[in-house]
């Protein structure tokens, strides 16, 4: 049975007879059926209802009625809802009590393609300016630090140093040892063809100190500490803690960002040197354990291959990577909106931004060291 039928009850009044159950999920009539009937029949000035045969109903009936109400308003037709059951009549009244606010700024029509490109460009310029402002602000704060005029708690700095230094050692140990092992195995396959397995030691030593030690420590710290910085500052943003600092006249840059930047810039070179050492030990385990190299030969070859320059390049890179991770983490945290979703986005974005810029910076280091022949 159709759930709706129409009857032109009197001159210019259309009676909608509702029957049977009106439940969501069943095949309910649509407002288009009513619109079609209004358009096709005689002139309609009033829509009324007959719900005598109406069975069980739920929100499915209400959504239909709200659309019929909107249709009537649009076509300037009077809506007489008295024939509806009392509950439906009252709920319909509730749904109509507060008029829809049109200019909330969220119901805009879809913009044209050129307008969207323009908007995105303006947004990109604004975002770049924000990044530059943040970097500029951070630099000025560092300059203030040199002048000894910053408001920062020493205990905060020491705690963050512990968190991104000592606390990171287990994961850095594991990853660096594995990287050393992998480098040794990959190198050995090729070197063995020439009977030059002893150069596994040189490969691992130079590979770890110049490249992989700093790089892997940076990737670990980006995922571990950069994300933590962003989430921590983002949550502070959500909880109005940063507002509380600002109104107290304390610069969040000095109080929150500076200790994080200092801690990472100080700890990253140390972590990189530690990663170099563990990586070399990992390579040594492969060289000595799986190939015919003695411990002494491996150590001597490592010593021959290494020089201060290789180690220094790795240390400088690690310092730069530290700045990148701290800036990305703190920037995304400070830019965070005021919701849980935004905190998640800030943490993800901090990691992605840091890793992209670490790789870009590493590429630049490769070019510069090649040009300078160091």
């Amino acid at each position, binding site marked *: 049975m159709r759930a709706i039928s129409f009857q032109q009850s009197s001159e210019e009044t259309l009676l909608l007879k509702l029957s049977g159950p009106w439940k969501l999920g069943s095949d309910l009539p649509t407002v288009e059926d009513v619109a079609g009937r209004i358009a096709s029949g005689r002139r309609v000035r009033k829509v009324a209802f007959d719900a005598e045969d109406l069975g069980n109903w739920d929100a499915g009936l209400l959504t239909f009625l709200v659309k019929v109400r909107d249709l009537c308003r649009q076509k300037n037709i009077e809506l007489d809802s008295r024939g509806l059951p009392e509950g439906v009549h009252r709920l319909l009244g509730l749904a109509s009590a507060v008029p829809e606010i049109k200019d909330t*700024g969220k119901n805009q029509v879809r913009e044209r393609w050129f307008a969207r490109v323009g908007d995105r460009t303006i947004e990109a310029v604004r975002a770049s300016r924000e990044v530059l402002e943040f970097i500029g602000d951070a630099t000025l704060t560092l300059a203030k630090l040199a002048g000894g005029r910053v408001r920062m708690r020493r205990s905060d700095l020491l705690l963050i140093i512990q968190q991104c230094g000592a606390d990171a050692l287990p994961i850095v140990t594991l990853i660096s040892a594995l990287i050393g092992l992998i480098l040794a195995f990959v190198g050995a396959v090729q070197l063995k063809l020439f009977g030059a397995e002893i150069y596994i030691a040189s490969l691992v030593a130079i590979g770890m100190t110049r490249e992989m030690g700093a790089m892997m420590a940076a990737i670990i710290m980006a995922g571990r500490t950069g994300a933590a910085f962003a989430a921590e500052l983002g*949550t502070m943003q959500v909880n109005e803690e940063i507002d509380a600092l600002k109104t*107290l006249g304390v610069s969040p840059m000095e109080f929150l960002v500076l200790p994080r930047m200092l801690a990472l810039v100080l700890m990253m070179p140390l972590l990189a040197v530690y990663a170099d050492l563990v990586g070399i030990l990992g390579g040594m385990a492969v060289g000595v354990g799986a190939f015919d190299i003695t411990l002494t030969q491996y150590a001597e070859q490592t010593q021959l291959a290494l020089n201060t320059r290789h180690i220094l390049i790795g240390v400088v890179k690690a310092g730069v990577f530290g700045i990148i991770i701290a800036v990305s983490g703190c920037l995304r945290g400070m830019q965070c909106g005021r919701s849980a979703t935004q905190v998640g986005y800030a943490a993800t974005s901090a990691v992605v931004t840091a890793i992209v810029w670490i790789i870009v910076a590493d590429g630049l280091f490769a070019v510069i060291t090649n040009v300078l022949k160091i």
Partner: protein
Amino acid sequence: MNRSASHIGVRNLTIAYGDFVVMRDLNFTINRGDVFIIMGGSGCGKSTLMKVLIGLKSPATGQVFYNDKSLWEIDPTDRQQIMQRFGILYQSGALWSSMTLAQNVGLPLELYTGLAAGEIHDLVSLKLSLVGLAGFEEFYPSEISGGMRKRAGLARAMALDPEVLFFDEPSAGLDPVSARRLDDLILELRESLGTTVVVVTHELASLFAIGNNSVFLDPETRTMIASGDPKQLLAESPDPKVRRFLTRGEE
């Protein structure tokens, strides 16, 4: 103390997020020693107005005067000095989560008073006992309840004996007894220290109990539609929106 002297003046203030105007044409005066209520329905821009008053958000147009100094037209350093005379209780308490309650309340004192550690410790204990949190000095914000966090936030807001105390929805999330206690505390602070108090709220019991001046913000017209003593507004305001709000929609 001159109660009728203008402390905070708002002139032709319009607040916007980008192109979206939150409130326009606001004009009102908060006198020294007032308990001034910013009221209106949910989402009408009360908290945003408070952000402009405390210097966190710049207005689109118009001015906010503190003792006849325009907050948004002076040098940022001068603005910062004015802001240091404010105590603010945020809706969530906004305690610094990595610090204990004693450190939270003590930080403003450390930064701005030059007092010795022992004196700061005594002051912190006093402020915490004023809000009923004596003995909780070494607790972290995550270890106490929401109501306690709010009271600790008030202790921090009072740390520097501010000239103006701002409260964003102070009773939200509090049981009726705690809410009443907070109201009494606000009145006590006004009476004993002469503090000007600005409260953002839509809690009727609270606003009638403590407010002696107010502004009513209307989300539909996006401007203020009434100002004055809330009790007087209830008795005399001809505006149906104001009457409906102040009588919980019974009129």
